[in-house]
């Protein structure tokens, strides 16, 4: 690719949104994992971005990282204009980017089956949730009915 900056006059049309990268969003996961997705929708993770909006901080990159999926990763959340389908703490934040798994569900290693506590600890810090109990929290991660 060649890319250079020149003084110019033209105006580009707004491009249509589209999928990019390895993150596919929870609606794609739902097509096979309907029950899990329905349960997840009942959790706070499912409206984590709305929570951020409520406090007026949805535009702050440092806050976004805990309320979206794949922040700072290739194919992950960029911002709510470019990647609105990746807001909220969805399936792929714990299980990893899902495109490879969605294309070939039988392929071993294409998805993280058992996410580690370390993943949660990125946002659930001791200051934020002093008594965070991974073993207990993981039981409710897909909602009350599992």
């Amino acid at each position, binding site marked *: 690719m060649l890319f250079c900056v020149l003084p110019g006059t033209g105006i580009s049309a707004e491009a249509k949104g589209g999928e990019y990268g390895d993150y596919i969003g929870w609606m794609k996961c739902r097509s096979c994992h309907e029950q899990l997705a329905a349960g997840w929708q009942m959790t706070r993770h499912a409206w984590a971005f709305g929570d951020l909006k409520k406090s007026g*901080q949805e535009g702050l990159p440092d806050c976004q990282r805990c309320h979206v999926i794949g922040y700072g990763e290739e194919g992950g959340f960029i911002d709510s204009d470019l990647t609105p389908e990746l807001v909220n703490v969805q399936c792929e934040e714990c299980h990893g980017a899902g495109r490879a798994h969605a294309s070939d569900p039988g392929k071993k290693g294409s998805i993280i089956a058992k996410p580690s506590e370390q993943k949660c600890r990125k946002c659930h810090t001791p200051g934020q949730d002093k008594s965070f109990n991974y073993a207990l929290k993981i039981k409710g991660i897909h909602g009350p009915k599992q």
Partner: protein
Amino acid sequence: MWFCLAAMMAISIGAAAAFAAAQLTVDPSHYDFGEVPEGPPVSLTAVLENTGDADLTIKNVWTHCACTDSELGKQTLKPREKTTLKITYNTADRPGIFKKDITIETDIVGHEEVEMEVVGTVKEAPGAKILVTPRKIDAGNLKKGSSTKLTMDVRNDGTLPLVIRKITERATGLVFYDGVKQGDILIGAGETRRLELEYKTAKSGPFTDVLIIDSNAKNAAKGGFAFMVVGKSEE
């Protein structure tokens, strides 16, 4: 007579014992920091008191946000006993209004969660702020090997000059503009500059490229400010 009085006293003592309950009072339960500068953290020390008549245990303090820390003095409180809860909000890179709920989880049956709230406004530190229009540029249908011109407006919405140092594609790391070789692009505070890009792709079929602008903009994510180029490359 004496028997009746003794029986009544016994009943009232029993009832009191049966209704003994802990109660948590938080002071203040709502606090407005007002306007604070961006950078240094701000703190509030609230007083928690057990205003009931049974022991209580604070099982957890949950701030709902990694930007807000809590520090609890004591977990178990006897009746009339007090402790402190220090709440710290980290203002760095968080300009604008904030409203943070804090949930105090207790063992009081029926009142397991006691809420408090801190609010305020972080006054933005001086800096450059980048705004790119459009965020998704449609390159249209491209013949493989040929190029097309793309135009975008870059606005500096901040209070200090915006310096664009580099433009790269995120997936490949390819450098498309290098300020070291070509000179940094400077955009004054409140100014907009139209940039025209000569764009060419070696890819085939539909493509979505994420390009990253490396600058001094304080509203950009850590890796830089992103915009997209989409299109279709044909043989």
